[in-house]
């Protein structure tokens, strides 16, 4: 029992300790904090940052922007998927446009959107643009996979369109939508922060990242990167749990 627990603890603890050791060794051999700070220097920078109100406000604002982007991108992607699934004309017109959005590099979008949108709104716009084709693709695939026998049953049993949507389409789409949303969240997070770096708003993780780079504060740069990774992992886990709970309900 105890031996098993110890084994489990070791399995969890050893990989991070190993990689922290590799990082520390690499920093030791490089020997210049400007190029590669060690984990202790980064932890110190992180502690200093976490003690300021600006740190929490920046993180909060980035979260708000990314979730705004995720929300509008998800809504637009799902709506477009229904439109292109049920209307041949809409599909002929919109499907190529969505595919172009999917194929366009995020940096091109950031620079283009910079010309058209106020700076504070750019990260949310970009995050949404990255989310839209992913959700469109997963919902479209889900719609194509809805069991035609169930749809025929709905017609024969005189279900209204709304009831067919609620009882057949939406539950059938759940799996495709969930996996699409998890992928989209990762993209929204990365593209949103990238937009903040290129077009820095007043309070944002990306702005702080850029400021640290310009000031050659490499430990701070690493600290913000760690924050981005930690928030991404944490939020993805939260989102996954929420979606799993929704599926069970």
């Amino acid at each position, binding site marked *: 029992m105890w031996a098993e627990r110890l084994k489990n603890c070791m399995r969890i603890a050893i990989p991070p300790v190993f990689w922290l050791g590799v990082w520390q060794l690499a920093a030791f051999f490089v020997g210049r904090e400007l190029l590669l700070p060690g984990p202790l220097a980064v932890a110190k920078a992180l502690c200093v940052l976490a003690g300021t109100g600006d740190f929490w406000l920046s993180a909060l604002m980035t979260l708000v922007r990314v979730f705004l982007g995720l929300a509008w991108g998800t809504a637009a992607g799902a709506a477009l998927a229904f439109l292109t699934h049920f209307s041949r004309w809409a599909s002929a017109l919109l499907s190529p446009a969505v595919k172009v959005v999917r194929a366009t590099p995020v940096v091109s979008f950031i620079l283009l959107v910079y010309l058209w949108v106020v700076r504070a709104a750019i990260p949310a716009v970009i995050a949404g643009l990255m989310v839209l084709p992913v959700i469109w693709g997963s919902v479209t695939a889900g719609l194509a996979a809805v069991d035609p026998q169930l749809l025929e049953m709905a017609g024969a049993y005189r279900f209204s369109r709304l009831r067919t949507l609620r009882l057949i389409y939406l*539950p059938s789409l759940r799996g495709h939508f969930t996996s699409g949303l998890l992928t989209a969240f990762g993209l929204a997070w990365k593209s949103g922060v990238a937009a903040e770096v290129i077009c820095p708003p007043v309070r944002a993780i990306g702005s702080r990242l850029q400021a640290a780079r310009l000031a050659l504060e490499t430990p701070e740069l690493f600290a913000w990167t760690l924050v981005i990774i930690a928030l991404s992992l944490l939020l993805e886990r939260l989102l996954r749990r929420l979606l799993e709970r929704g599926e069970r309900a």
Partner: protein
Amino acid sequence: MIQIRDLTLRYGDKTVLDRLSLDLPDEGITALSGPSGCGKTTLLRVLAGLTPSESGAVSGVDPGRTAFLFQEDRLLPWRTVGQHIVDVLPKARRGEVPSWLAFAELEGEGGAYPAALSGGMARRLALARCAALGGDLLLLDEPFAGVDEERAGRMLERLRALDAPVILTSHQTAVLERCDAVFRLDGPPLRLV
């Protein structure tokens, strides 16, 4: 009387209905019996308006007022037994759910999901859902497949009590014996034996 005249239907090269003419009773329980693949299901689907015929005419049936039981159960994995009945009932009739569960002998299973049901239970639920939907004519494709004979007999009597004409397909002797009229068919193309 349900009058079928010169009904023709082909699936690719296969002629399933070839100028079929038949008079079916519009009361009581009528059975169509014949080997698998002879065209019984196709005939029921044409009567229900689910499959259009290429030519011919049917009178005495309003496809918009029939209730059709598919050969497959077509249950929704995410809906409970009780919800399947609720889904076909108008709001004013929601109180009938317990009596439809009793019709299918599924009392106590109202909260179960289809995955937890046996094949026979799922079939009974599909039949109860179809009967609860109701209509001027019940068209039932193999309603008692996987249901034991004794229970099938009880359910057949409950169907009779609904007072709506029923046309069903079946291979089960015990079911055929209880029907008011039995049409022996062969095919394809579908024809009276």
